[in-house]
């Protein structure tokens, strides 16, 4: 309106407006997400496994005698000696492994830990990549070149071999593995991709406006660039979770993971004891099929969520 003078909005009003916009776009994105049939399927898979893993304490409580069902040290004396691995029975829904431990308990226990591993590794990694990408895009020039060269070098490191090498120096628990994965992947390809996204954000008018109105560099990066890169970050985080879980399983299978229990370790125990050979694959299916299916479904679940998010983030992929 030509004759009304725009007044300065108070900080509180700005925040309220921001929040309203945030929730509205959230609802919008949710609708887009559910419209892609594949996204909700992935989400339901993940939710199922989260609940499945969270049910472990309940499972342990349901069997009053905890010691038998401990995933690492359990042993059932009621089973006749020499019958481990024992096929599924009512008291052991997925049977026992070669050392007499309840497989269902192991599965539940490991599921939670693997999901956490994936989320932490992917989350931390993508966080690093987002920050690097945004900073590199914002400052450009030598900062940009430096980070891109760092990314080049980090990408050269063969992942599995480097993890094995590092496990000789640090004690690799699942948490440490997650952090190492975050470092090795966060500085690499994802940073480059997020940087190009940040470049696109940087040239948008509102960033220019923020700079003119005197925002500090930190403020611009943190409050403007990063939030607009985040949707893409979140997308890549989903794909990274798949990679993290797979890497854990591969490391465990090769015998280089020194944790007591995880999805990959369940399969490793079975392989070490020699139950993954020939017709044993059929007879002792309960030693490898449950963890294998869990790994596959979890990875697929996160991937589907990623694809669902893809349609939210990338408008060109949506149905017309």
């Amino acid at each position, binding site marked *: 309106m030509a004759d009304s003078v725009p007044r300065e909005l108070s900080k509180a009003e700005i925040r309220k407006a921001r929040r309203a916009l945030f929730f509205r776009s959230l609802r919008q994105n949710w609708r887009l997400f559910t419209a892609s049939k594949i996204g909700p399927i992935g989400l339901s898979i993940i939710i199922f496994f989260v609940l499945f893993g969270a049910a472990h304490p309940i499972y342990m409580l349901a069997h009053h005698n905890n010691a038998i069902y401990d995933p*690492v*040290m359990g*042993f059932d*004396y009621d089973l006749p*000696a*020499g019958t*481990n691995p024992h096929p599924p029975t009512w008291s052991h829904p997925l049977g026992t492994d*070669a*050392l*007499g431990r309840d497989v269902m308990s192991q599965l539940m226990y490991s599921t939670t830990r693997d999901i956490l591993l994936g989320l932490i590794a992917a989350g931390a990694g993508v966080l690093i990549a987002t920050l690097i990408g945004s900073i590199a895009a914002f400052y450009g020039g030598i900062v940009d070149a430096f980070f891109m060269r760092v990314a080049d070098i980090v990408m050269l490191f063969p992942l599995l071999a480097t993890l094995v090498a590092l*496990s*000789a120096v640090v*004690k690799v628990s699942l948490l440490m593995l997650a952090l190492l994965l975050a470092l090795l992947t966060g500085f690499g390809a994802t940073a480059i991709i997020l940087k190009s996204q940040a470049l696109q954000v940087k040239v948008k008018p509102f960033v220019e406006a923020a700079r003119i109105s005197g925002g500090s560099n930190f403020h611009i990066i943190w409050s403007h660039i990063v939030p607009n890169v985040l949707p893409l970050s979140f997308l890549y985080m989903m794909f990274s979770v798949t990679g993290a879980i797979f890497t854990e399983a591969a490391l*465990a299978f090769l*015998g*280089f*993971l*020194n944790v*007591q229990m995880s999805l990959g*370790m369940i399969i*490793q*125990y*079975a*392989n*070490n*004891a*020699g*139950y*993954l*050979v*020939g*017709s*044993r694959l059929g007879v*002792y299916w309960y030693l490898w099929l449950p963890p294998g299916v869990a790994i596959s479904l979890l990875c697929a679940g996160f991937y589907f969520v990623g694809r669902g998010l893809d349609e939210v983030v990338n408008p060109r992929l949506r149905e017309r």
Partner: protein
Amino acid sequence: MKRLVLLGLILGLIAGVGLFGAAANTGSKVYNIGLLDDITTTNMIAGLGPDSSTYNFTIYYWNQTLYTITDKTFEYVPQLADGMPSDMPPKLSDQKQPDGKPLYETTVHLKQGIYWSDGNEFTADDVVFSYNLIEKYADVFGGNWSGEIYPKLFYKIQKIDDFTVKFYLTSDSINFKWGTLMMTILPKAQWEPIVAKAEQGKTPGKDILAAQIDHPVSIGPFTFDQWQKGAFAVNDANPTYYDQGSNEAIFKNGAVHLTNPGTGNAKAISYDNTYYGTASGDKILDMTTGPFVDKVIYHVYTDQATAVLALSKGDIDFIENPNGLTQGFADQLKSANGVSLVENPPNGWRYLAFNLRKSPGSYLAYRQAVAYLIDRDFICNNLLQGRAVPEYSVIPPANSFWYDPNVPKLGQGMDEGARMQKAIDLLKAAGFTWKQEPIVQNGKLVTQGKGLIDPKGTPVPSQTLLCPSTAYDPMRATFGIWISRWMNELGIPVNLNLTGFNTIQGFVFGSGAPTYDMYILGWGLGNPAFPDFMDAFFGSENDYPAGFNTPGFKNEDFDNAIQGMMASWDQTVEQQYAYKAQDILAEQVPYVILFYSPLTEAYRSDRVSMPYTQVLDGLQGVFGEQPSVKLISAQ
């Protein structure tokens, strides 16, 4: 349409290749052995030095030694030598060392009429050459070589005539018998030019190790044919093997009768010798040596599951695996037609080690208390279902000559309450106290112990137990988990650290005096014929950084027993001392010997027949008995 044609073409191509591939001719008279890793060199000096590995040894059938040990019973007998040395132990010599110190000497005669595979005759020249070469470069060659020649012991060797040599030694140590006289003899004709060339350079030792030996000259049952790196290696039967057709008869009364009619091939020699008694009565073994196969093909499989499938299918006849088959693989092979499983005790054991250099490991009561806590029967029979067998002595029970059946077995047969009580009593008697004392009532632990305090009043700090993780060895890991639990119940604060072998070894055998608290590892023991490893592991002079005496055990009685054993050349006397030594170890427990896991192995009994299948360390210890295995009916 186009796509279908393309698809059909591709499938046809694959089928064609498949048919072609499957049509490989099945060779007759071939013994197929599966290896779980590739061999690394055909240069035997390197192969017995820095490159020593089980898989290299599996194919090294080109060498012989002056003396060797018999099959199954490990008696000391001549191989290339003719008869025993003139003086055992070596006698004081007239000659002396330059500084006046004494020398000892003994004469060895060589068998005559033996030829190398290159046509040269085996003479004293080869023997003198070999010993001089190894003496000169034992340091550089390293590996097994220095443990054979004992550079400080060996003074010189002298050729008396073409088939007689004389050894001069700095002492009459028994290492001469079990080390020096069992050293590999190298073919002079092949190695002399190589050594001469190497000595023109700046690093002769390294150059000798680096020499490419494509066709090693052989004096043994096989000659080397080819090595397809990463895939397979082949040995051919040696047509001029001197011992073809020989017979080894071992009697229950201890006698050994070695004969060779000399008709095995054109170059076979004849002899008839008996040792250690009269050749009469029941036999333990009656074995003829061939080889009875034309070729041995060593297939490299990098995955044990695939090797097991190959054995099951018949692609290979035997798998060379120092660890034996695990449960599931044995299970799979049980149901395979034509495959036989054998079980044997290994020459080795797994153990828990203390550190006697500091508290609380320095207290005998502490060590014994922990030893009593460990219920081996529970873990071995219940948890591990017989895949592990409890062991108490450093000498494997299967080594019947050296094993003392009356060795103390702390805690055997006791139930949980009794063990805990005994441990509490031992600690209390030695002056240990607790912040909270463990209490046993009616045979059960009702109050857990907390905060053990040593007799000097210092609280025992948290003890780190280094143990191979479940990924490396589920059996040891299981022991580690339960031992740390039991110790914590007793009130000893234990922190279990499950990790890899490399890490543990780095800690324990690193530079400087070991600072570990406790660790669990295992040993493969050396020569079963003479347990001098006890000296290496527990003799007080072997307590130095990176030495084998990791606990820092210094016990005068033990040292006396061991030195008595090493100084005597009389087997009965040696046996008495060996009994005493292992008893002391079982009481003093610097190591708590935990268990051994029986070696389960498999071979195709429908295709090959082995002269014997029961032996300490299993078929893998004798590498599948290649010189004497017979093929059953051609394919």
